[in-house]
Structures are given as C-alpha cells and as structure tokens.
C-alpha cells in the first residue's frame, strides 16, 4: 500500500470520526452511561420492594411495581426512619462549614493577594499541601482527639473536620480571584480617603462575589456529600448525616433498596440542582482548583 493511499484512508477515517452522526452517537452513549444510574436511583425510589425484586427489572416501571401514592417511600423515610433528623444535620453541618470556610478563606485569600510577609510563598505551598493530604490518614488522630474532648457524635466535630478539609482550597481559589482584580482599585479607594477595611468591604469584596459564590457552592457540596468522617464520628440520629443514613440501610438483614434509593436520591439532589443551575461556576471552580492549585 503506497503512502498516498494510506493518507487517503486515514483522511476518510478522520472525516468519519468527526462526522455529526459519530459524534452524536458517542455523546449520546456517554450521556446514557453517565446519567443512567441517576435515573435508576430515582425510578427505584418510586418502586415497591416487590417491583425491585422482579427480574428482569423493567426500565420504565408501571402498574403494581410503583408505590401508591408515588411519594410514599420518601414520606416514610422522612417521618418514620429519622431521615428528617439526618437531613437537618446535613443542612446544618454543611451551612455552618460554608459560612466559616468562606469567611476565613476570603479574608486569607485577600491577605495573600495584597500583602507580603516573610516566607509567604512557603506558607502558601504548605496550604496546598494540607489540601492534598488524604483524609483517611487524618481519621485516626481526629477520632481519638474528639474522643478525648467528648466531641464524638456531635455536629461540631463534623464542622471542625470539614473546615479543615475545605479551607485550604477556598484560600487558594480566593487568592487567585483577588489577584485578578487590579490593585489600582485599592489605590484609588485609598486616595479617595477610605480605610483599608472600607476598601476591602466596599470595593473589592463586591467585585469578588462570583468567586465567593463558587467557593460557597463547592464547600457546601463537599460537606454535604462527605461520608468517611460522618460515618466514623457519629452514632445517633442526633448527629448522623444523609450519606451515613443511606449506608445504614445496607446493614439490615433485608436491604430495603426502595428506601435506600430514596435516601440516595435525597443525598444527591442538592448537588444535582447546583450543577444544573451553576454549571459554569462549578466548572470554573473545579478547573481553577485543579490547575491553578
């Protein structure tokens, strides 16, 4: 086969791979693959246990397989299986963590973007390092320290751990965001007679709102979905979060998959909504967090 013919063949393969139909087919199958488990969670959360145990399972369930009324799995879960407590705990922990982390992270991010102090670059690299430590490695010391402080099985313990896990990322992201805001603005504000605090509060912070929003969303999601520490540090419904509640279902003798699916769907719901509503913010937060640190 001469090179000319080879060239023509690869040319046409390339054109085929880039054609509309191939790309559509690839994208459709990828989307099906990635969204099907989510669809299946939702569908299963509406089924009776008999419907779940049927084989082969029906992709679009009908008739006797579905619970009646359709939301009964969710209401049973929320009002008879202490999932209302789990939901409140998850909300409380995630919101408190977000407030603490975003406040401290924004302050430190501004500090790192505008001031120099000895070894500041090393401190900053250290912050990145803190973010990259595997949480499982810190589980044992946190577990034992909380045990000695009588903090096991409290929401405060979870807030402390999630602050430790999210603060480094937020400092990093906010610093990069503040650096993208020109220092001329600070300068102009000083010349006009405002103090440094006023400048930060009235001039720079409003401009950094999108960055703060991205950090808040990411922190909320990461705290809401966290499982390892929540599972190890909580025992009673007073402190357990939703991911832990969903996991507990598996420890019964008979796994109630319909309730498990409902619990799982509640656990993923805020993240799904956030992704749909704030896709751009989350994408930029994720890529900036990864690539720029």
């Amino acid at each position: 086969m001469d090179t000319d013919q080879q060239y023509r063949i690869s040319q046409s393969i390339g054109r085929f791979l880039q054609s509309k139909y191939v790309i559509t087919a690839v994208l459709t199958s990828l989307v099906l693959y990635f969204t099907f488990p989510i669809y299946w969670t939702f569908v299963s959360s509406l089924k009776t246990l008999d419907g779940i145990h049927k084989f082969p399972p029906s992709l679009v369930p009908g008739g006797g397989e579905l619970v009646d009324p359709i939301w009964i799995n969710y209401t049973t879960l929320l009002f008879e299986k202490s999932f209302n407590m789990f939901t409140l705990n998850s909300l409380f922990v995630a919101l408190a963590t977000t407030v603490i982390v975003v406040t401290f992270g924004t302050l430190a991010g501004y500090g790192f973007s505008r001031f120099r102090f000895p070894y500041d670059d090393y401190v900053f690299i250290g912050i990145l390092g803190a973010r990259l430590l595997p949480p499982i490695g810190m589980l044992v010391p946190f577990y034992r320290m909380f045990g000695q402080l009588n903090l096991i099985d409290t929401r405060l313990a979870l807030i402390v751990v999630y602050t430790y896990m999210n603060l480094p990322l937020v400092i990093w992201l906010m610093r990069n965001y503040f650096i993208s805001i020109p220092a001329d603005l600070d300068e102009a504000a000083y010349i006009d007679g405002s103090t440094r605090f006023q400048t930060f509060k009235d001039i720079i912070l409003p401009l950094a709102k999108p960055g703060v929003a991205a950090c808040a969303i990411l922190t909320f999601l990461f705290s809401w979905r966290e499982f390892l520490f929540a599972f190890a540090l909580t025992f009673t419904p007073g402190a357990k979060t939703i991911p832990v509640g969903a996991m507990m279902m598996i420890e019964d003798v008979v796994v109630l998959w319909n309730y498990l699916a409902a619990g799982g769907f509640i656990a993923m719901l805020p993240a799904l909504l956030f992704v749909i509503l704030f896709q751009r913010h989350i994408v930029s937060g994720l890529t900036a967090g990864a690539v720029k640190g």
Partner: protein
Amino acid sequence: MTTRELINFVREGAFGRFSGEETGEIGPIREFINDHFMLFVLTPPLFVLGTLVLLPSSYLLWSSVHEARTWGSDVFVGLENYVAIFQDPMFYLSLQHSVMYVIGSVSLAFVLGLTAALAINQVASKRVRSTFTVLILLAWAVPLVVTGLIWRFMLHADYGIVNSLLIEAGVISTKLGFVSDPSLAFISVVVVDAWARAPFAAILLLAGLQTIPDDLYEAARVDGANFFQKFRHITIPHLKPQAAIALVIMSMFAFRTFSIVFALTGGGPANSTRVLATYIYQAGINQGNVGYASALSVVMILITMVFVTFYVLQIQEDALETA
C-alpha cells in the same frame, strides 16, 4: 512587567505603607486596624488552619510510635508499629490492590473523560455544549457513598439491572455476581470508581482543549493535515500539561478512595477488594488499634507525598504566577 513582577507590585502596595492620615480623623482603634490590616485578615484563618492541620498531624506521629488502643493507656514502643507493617501480609495485599485500583480506574476514567471532552469540543453550538457538560457532570454530583450503594444495587446478582441488560444483549447467558464473586468484585469496583471519576477528567481536559487556538487547526487544515495528524501534532502537545495534572490529581484521589469500596463491597469478598484506606479504617476504628493504624496512615501519607511533590512541582510556577 511579567505576571510575577505584577503580583509582587500589587502585594507590596503600589504606593507604600498607608498610615491613615490621609483619611482624616478615624479614631485610634480604626487607625490601629488600618495600620495592621494584614494581621487582621491573615492571622485568624492561618491560626485556625494551622491548628486543624498541625494538631492532628503531630498526634498522628506521636501515636504511630505508641502501642495505643482506643481505651487504655499508651505505651511507647518506638518503631515497632512500622516494623510490624512491613511484616504484615495484609498490608502488602491492600497496597497491591490500591496500586492496581489506581492504575485501572484512572486509565479507564481518563479514556472516558478524554473521549467525552473531544466529542463535546466538536459541538459547535455553545448551548448544546453546556447541556452535554451538565449531563456528564451530573455523575460527579453523586456522593461517592451513594455511587457505591446504587451500583451495588445495579450489579446485584439476583435482580440487578446490569445482569438483565447484559443477558438481553446476549453478552452473558447466566446471571453474574459482580460484587459477590471474588474474581469479578475487583473489576466491578474499578469500573464504578472510573464512572465517578471520569466527569472530572472530562471537565479538566475540556478546559485544556478550549485553550488551543482554532488558528492552529485552521492552518493545519489548509496544509492538508488529516484528523490523526492534527490530533498527534496539535492536540496532544497542547493538552499534555492539562493531562498530566488530571492524571496526578485523579491518581491522588483514587489512591485514597474509601467510600466507593466500602459501600460497594466492604473490602470483601475474601479481601479481594481490600485497599489501603479500608484497611486503615478496619485497624483504627473497627479494631481500635490506634497505634498501628496511625503508622499505616503515616506510610500512606508518605506514599501520597510522591504524587503531591510531583503535582506541586508541576503547578508551582503556574500557581504562584497565575493572575
């Protein structure tokens, strides 16, 4: 002025130190805050973070050289815990599983993510493109423990949808116990992990693809380059830094995976899916062998440090210079 110089210029204050005189009378307290504003914004966060990082890490080191149980007093044993680790066959087994897990899941997720990113990047309409991005990112939104649980349900030997679909497609003839059969469990865990990790790869790689200027492809097209030549000579070289970072990050996160394995198989059947993270959990929390688990954690952190160092070196310049 380079970016680096610009940042230093910004940080040193473009106009020297500010005393507050320019603002007129602001009172002694506000003037003090004004003069020491750097301390006011940096001290509280760094104090909190420093405490939350340094306290547990020093405690970790301390307990790793002690014979410590959950209840009872601690006895100093020197490096005995570390010696025990290197004589522990279960440690080698879980380390081996962890490494295989990282390699399998990261390469699978990378291929899936790259395919998704390349395909999405071909879509011309911005609206359609962000729709596809959202649909693929939804998988990232699922909490990892829920990922494990729901796949455990889907892979169930008796009534799982995966068995049903594969039988219908004619791939298999009898139901398989994807998570109950030791020879299949590990593969299942890796595939599920890749499902959860691929969207992140897709997002990072898509961001990388979008920074490649269209002119390059245009010029290559004019010169008569075909699809593969363009991919080989334009896409791959430009995507390399992004791909390296994606691979390092994903490896780092796959190495520490706990939730997916724990929810999907719990380390079983017959230890076939026991990884380092679940082993630490079992030793430290279930068996209360705090000293040994701490030493294991230290070993795991040291291994992670290899990735971390590489990652930091890769992005350090970029991280400190990005505006």
